[in-house]
């Protein structure tokens, strides 16, 4: 028995494939994790270790000074708080408005809803740079159809506040919102019609059916969109640097970190040691993604499971 198993080609093939698979997955995982490991190692290094040829991974002189520098320069704790508030706010509003729109497109068909859904796809396809300038000018002198000047006499400048984010996410037009509407629509289309019909027969209106029946069923889709929108808002520098010029959020702080650091070191940015700047910047990046990694550790199980059930695939 054991001999025949040993000689079986099938077994050899399987063993060989799992070896290849292991190598492949291990290697690619390493490629993915490498920059993070590198950053962690760099973050603890002392300035001297950077030039020491014997130090590759484990620093000779452990130091927390990079962290302290980065925290001080980025104004880390207030920045963290601001970013968290901003991302959480847009995530909640976006998920809610996209769920509504997705349900509307999936189940409550009306004349022209197909055309409007084509418009949703259009919003995904148009590069955001195309519409950035008019939006910018519009928000700089926000009139709300000329209503605000009627009341206060002049237009409002919404830049440098959270209003652009609130307004766009409330109306499901924030960063990549078209994608979320698409995900929700596909998901709601995958829920059997009988569920809703049962609810209607039991006397639930359309609103009640949506909040009490469909939403609890849509938790996987909600989790997926929430995680995507939170993370992408957190890392976004495109809209953030346009709408918020002086407010302290993670992405703006990160991109101006090297400059601020060289100013703090005294004087001329061009004279500062580029390696040291880069080292502190790496530490800054590590600090910025640390909250995301912690969140990911907790939700990744739901995330991976849920995306399989979101029915993105229809």
């Amino acid at each position, binding site marked *: 028995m054991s001999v025949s198993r040993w000689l079986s080609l099938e077994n050899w093939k399987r063993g060989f494939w799992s070896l290849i698979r292991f190598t492949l997955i291990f290697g690619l995982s390493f490629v993915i994790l490498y920059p993070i490991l590198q950053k962690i190692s760099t973050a603890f290094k002392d300035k001297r270790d950077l030039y020491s040829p014997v130090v590759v991974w484990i620093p000779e002189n452990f130091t927390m000074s990079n962290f302290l520098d980065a925290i001080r320069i980025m104004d880390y704790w207030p920045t963290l708080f601001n970013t968290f508030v901003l991302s959480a706010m847009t995530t909640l509003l976006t998920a809610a408005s*996209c769920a509504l729109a997705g349900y509307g497109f999936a189940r409550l068909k*009306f004349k022209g809803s197909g055309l409007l859904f084509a418009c949703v796809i259009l919003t*995904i396809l148009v590069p955001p740079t*195309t*519409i950035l300038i008019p939006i910018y000018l519009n928000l700089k002198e926000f009139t709300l159809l000329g209503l605000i000047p009627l009341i206060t006499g002049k237009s409002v400048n919404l830049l440098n506040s959270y209003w652009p984010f609130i*307004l766009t996410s409330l109306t499901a*037009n924030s960063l990549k919102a078209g994608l979320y509407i698409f995900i929700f629509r596909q998901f709601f289309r995958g829920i059997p019609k009988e569920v809703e019909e049962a609810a209607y027969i039991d006397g639930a209106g*359309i609103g009640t059916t949506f909040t009490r029946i469909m939403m609890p069923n849509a938790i996987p889709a909600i989790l997926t969109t929430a995680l995507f929108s939170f993370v*992408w808002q957190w890392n976004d520098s495109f809209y953030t640097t346009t709408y918020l010029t002086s407010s302290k959020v993670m992405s703006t702080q990160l991109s101006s970190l090297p400059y601020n650091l060289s100013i703090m070191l005294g004087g001329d940015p061009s004279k500062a040691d580029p390696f040291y700047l880069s080292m502190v910047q790496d530490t800054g990046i590590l600090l910025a993604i640390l909250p995301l990694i912690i969140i990911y550790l907790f939700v990744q199980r739901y995330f991976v499971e849920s995306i399989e059930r979101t029915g993105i695939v229809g």
Partner: protein
Amino acid sequence: MKSLTRRFGAKPRNYGKQKALWGIAYVTPWLVGFIFFFLIPLLSSLIYSFSEVTANSQGISISLKGLTNYVAAFTVNTSFNRLLTEAIVDMVVNVPLIVIFSLFLAVVLNQKFLGRSFARAIFFLPVILASGVILTLESGSLVQAVNAQNAGSSGLINALGSFELERLMLQAGVSETIVNYLTGAVDRIYEIVSQSGVQILIFLAAIQTISPQLYEASKMEGATGYEAFWKITFPMVSPMILVNMIYTIIDSFSRNELTDLIRTTGFVQFDFGLSSAMAWIYFAAISLILLISTYFVSSKVFYHE
């Protein structure tokens, strides 16, 4: 709902009409946003691109001047042509690579093996990490560049690098373009892995909707794993190939230098007209690519119905 209609003095409508009304109500928030934050900006951007926009304390004044901005983008601006071609070439090179790579990985990650959930967790990490500002900064990290240099020159990695592979394949008589394409992909493996997180997710989800009976039946008939992949998995996920292709294309908006150029033209040089013209040229180029590739792929796609 009934009390609501009664209050407004309307006759209770039939079920279908009621549904349609609610549908309009549900879509309205998005529609308002679509008009204010998409449609109007899109149209005004089109107008800007054909005109001279000057911003002053009174607001902005627009005077039409025809195609001047478009001509300027192609002829006057020093880097626009180069960046546009780079962006398009990058897209054409990367999209097939990313789609094939993520399909392959999705198939691998769908198999049962020890530590599968751990491996999945790692492979989806780039969805979180390689986006936005982090990606931009990472490419500029000096420490990383120097470390990569050191690692490269130490010999060990080099021996297994794409150089040997290249020689091997050239000797085997593979065309040089293909060899360069593939070895280029091996050298940019991090870039490709980090851009294919969402695509792997989508493919994985698609593979899991395929009913296992199909595989069982084909196994009974003596199909090998290889045949099962091409005859079952591939046709069943082919609609997702289209989706992933489009996703990869739109995902590349955020990470190319052309976007930066358009931004700086608009917000540093305050040449709104030229910036809008550039953005529209870029949009037109992308639409063209999307149309062509959608046309070719969708004719091959297998639909269940």
